[in-house]
């Protein structure tokens, strides 16, 4: 996920302080990985440097000064472009797992075992997401569903590969 674009998008509804931005981000998108303050401030200085946000006001406080940021027209165009661009599908799992399975076959290890263990790990995560979905609101449900469908797709690949292990073994050891 692009943190810069997400923070920019959050600023579209009105100027906010860095702290408010972090809180809004964590609440809506950061269930698993809340932002560090350092990430927020380094991202905001980059956006500032690129002219996508501007400082809307500064409040002096007991600690460091609190800057309030506002999105610029260039920032709005940037968010617009980001939203309109499709994401590249992530083929990470096939490549890593495929490598593991092939290596197992080449070294005469139990490739089915690798697939079983991976399935169990996928299901473990799916249980956590399913449980979160049951307890959560509609936003939680939609976010978890997205993750669940992706994990399910991986699992279908695992099942299909498990069913083709003999053929794969023949092909890679030829």
């Amino acid at each position, binding site marked *: 996920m692009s943190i810069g674009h997400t923070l920019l998008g959050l600023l579209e509804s009105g100027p906010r302080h860095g702290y408010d931005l972090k809180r809004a981000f964590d609440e809506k998108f950061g269930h698993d990985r809340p932002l560090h303050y350092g990430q927020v401030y380094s991202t905001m200085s980059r956006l500032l440097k690129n002219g996508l946000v501007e400082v809307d006001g500064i409040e002096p406080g007991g600690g460091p000064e609190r800057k309030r940021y506002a999105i610029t027209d260039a920032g709005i165009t940037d968010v617009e472009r980001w939203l309109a661009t499709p994401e590249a599908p992530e083929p990470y799992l096939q490549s890593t797992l495929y490598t593991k399975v092939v290596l197992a076959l080449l070294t005469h290890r139990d490739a089915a075992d690798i697939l079983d263990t991976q399935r169990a790990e996928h*299901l*473990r995560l799916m249980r956590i997401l399913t449980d979160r979905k*049951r307890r959560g609101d509609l936003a939680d449900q939609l976010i978890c569903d997205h993750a669940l469908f992706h994990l399910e797709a991986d699992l279908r690949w695992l099942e299909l590969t498990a069913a083709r292990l003999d053929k794969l073994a023949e092909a890679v050891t030829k």
Partner: protein
Amino acid sequence: MTPDGSLLVADDLHKAYGPTVALDGAGFSIHPGEVVAVMGPSGSGKSTLLHCLAGIVTPDSGSILYNGREMATMNDAERSALRRSEFGFVFQFGQLVPELTCVENVALPLRLNGTSRKEAERAALTWMERLEVDDLGKKRPGEVSGGQGQRVAVARALVTDPRVLFADEPTGALDSLNGERVMELLTDAARTTNAAVVLVTHEARVAAYSDREIVVRDGKSRDMERVV
């Protein structure tokens, strides 16, 4: 495999249909209140395993202990009584009697056990409420949707307060949203009553409602909890 406190334990089950080996040393165990998914590809033996555990099919060899008692030592009448009063069943298709109304369908297992009509239908309605189908009481199965019919079937499976619920692809004929709701209601209801659920499924998103999974392949089972 004899985990302490298990309600249903199977060990080294073998079953062949002619030359076709369905089970080849499969094992299983489940505790009260636990939901265990039985997964595996088509033809792997998972439905045969469920049928053996439920006393519908007799294995060629191996042991199945229900509540500490060997099922092979029970006669047909005892096994039937067990299925009627201690076990509940939900299948993928065609389980409701089309001539009966939904409330009569749900009340049916109690009626077969000798409960009066009034009392059976009162209990049926309580379960239908839990499964959010109490407004369908007077309709016949042909007049309700697939998702509603499946909830009626779950209510019927639970009306006798079974100690084990056997569910074979219970959401197989439903779309995602309906399947999900049926799984939520089924597992919530089972947890409330401390029933054990044996859930046969090939769908990972359905299995994600379980506490753990057993994978069946080529008639052999693998308990993934003991692996990971």
